């Protein structure tokens, strides 16, 4: 129960990596809020799973790219968890793929706004509580695309690379207050999206991974939990690549 008494907010926390992280945080003793933007059904099911494990939990609808919505989200989370979050996991992200030359301007803007600006807005609001408490943990979920590039996803790759740079810069800004800021870069992860790929494409992707298989959401969550835990007290500004040897960075 290394996070007993802590309050955590996981954006995009009702499925996949976000949900696995929220469950892990709850099992470590934290009160947990999860935000969602697309599926009320997933939100209800995530909340039920969290509370079934005995956690103090809350689900809040919020488009993290909307400053007013992020302010409302923080007010609601602070109220329901009994104080401001001292663990923030910026996991919410969208993709709108397309080759850059033909990419709609709006598709660029939406992805950068949600994946990069959204994380920045959440950090800004979370920091006040963390600085007051002189303890805080921020973990940003990034992507191998930020390091390797990804054809057809320049908007996503650029946003995630921006998030890596934000992680490092903010880590320097708030270190003296006992707040650490790190990133986790998940490789291929067993999700709904992966299941829809044609088998040949799946095999080709698996071949690029040294461990020869996709990871599970729980394997990614384990790295996020480490960075949120007291065990990571001397780790800040770094990216933990949890990708089965895809990038070897």
């Amino acid at each position, binding site marked *: 129960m290394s996070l007993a008494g802590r309050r955590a907010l996981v954006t995009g926390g009702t499925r996949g990596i976000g949900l696995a992280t929220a469950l892990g945080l709850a099992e470590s003793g934290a009160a947990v809020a999860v935000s969602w933007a697309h599926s009320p059904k997933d939100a209800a099911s995530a909340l039920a799973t969290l509370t079934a494990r005995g956690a103090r939990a809350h689900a809040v609808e919020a488009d993290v790219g909307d400053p007013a919505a992020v302010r409302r989200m923080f007010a609601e989370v602070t109220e329901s968890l009994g104080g401001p979050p001292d663990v923030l996991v910026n996991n919410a992200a969208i993709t709108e793929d397309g080759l850059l030359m033909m990419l709609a301007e709006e598709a660029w803007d939406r992805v950068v706004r949600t994946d990069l600006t959204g994380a920045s807005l959440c950090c800004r609001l979370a920091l*006040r509580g963390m*600085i*007051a408490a002189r303890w805080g943990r921020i973990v940003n979920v990034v992507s191998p695309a930020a390091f390797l590039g990804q054809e057809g996803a320049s908007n996503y790759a650029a946003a995630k690379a921006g998030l890596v740079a934000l992680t490092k810069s903010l880590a320097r*800004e708030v270190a003296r*207050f006992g707040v650490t800021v790190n990133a986790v870069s998940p490789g291929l992860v067993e999700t709904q999206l992966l299941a829809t790929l044609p088998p040949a494409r799946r095999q080709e992707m698996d071949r690029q991974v040294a461990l020869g298989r996709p990871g599970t959401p729980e394997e990614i969550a384990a790295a996020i939990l480490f960075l949120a835990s007291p065990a990571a007290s001397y780790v800040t500004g770094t990216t933990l690549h949890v990708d089965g040897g895809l990038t070897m960075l």
Partner: protein
Amino acid sequence: MDADPLLAEVKELLVSGLRLDVRPADIADDAPIFGEGLGLDSIDALELVVLVEERFRISIPDEEVGKRAFASVNALVDFIRQERAE
């Protein structure tokens, strides 16, 4: 001692909140809070924002407002009075 209780409270908050090695009474009313003087930098300002917001229930949302509020101890006292009046 400062005759103005708010001025004294602000100085006391600066010293205790930012763990300064001076006595509150030794801080000049018109001294700039950041830069020279108290030897505080712009990152220390983040903590002062949080302290002032909590103590006086006011909001310092961005750098523009922060620059105005933290121009000097006197400026901060004026800013707090103004915000509370609204």
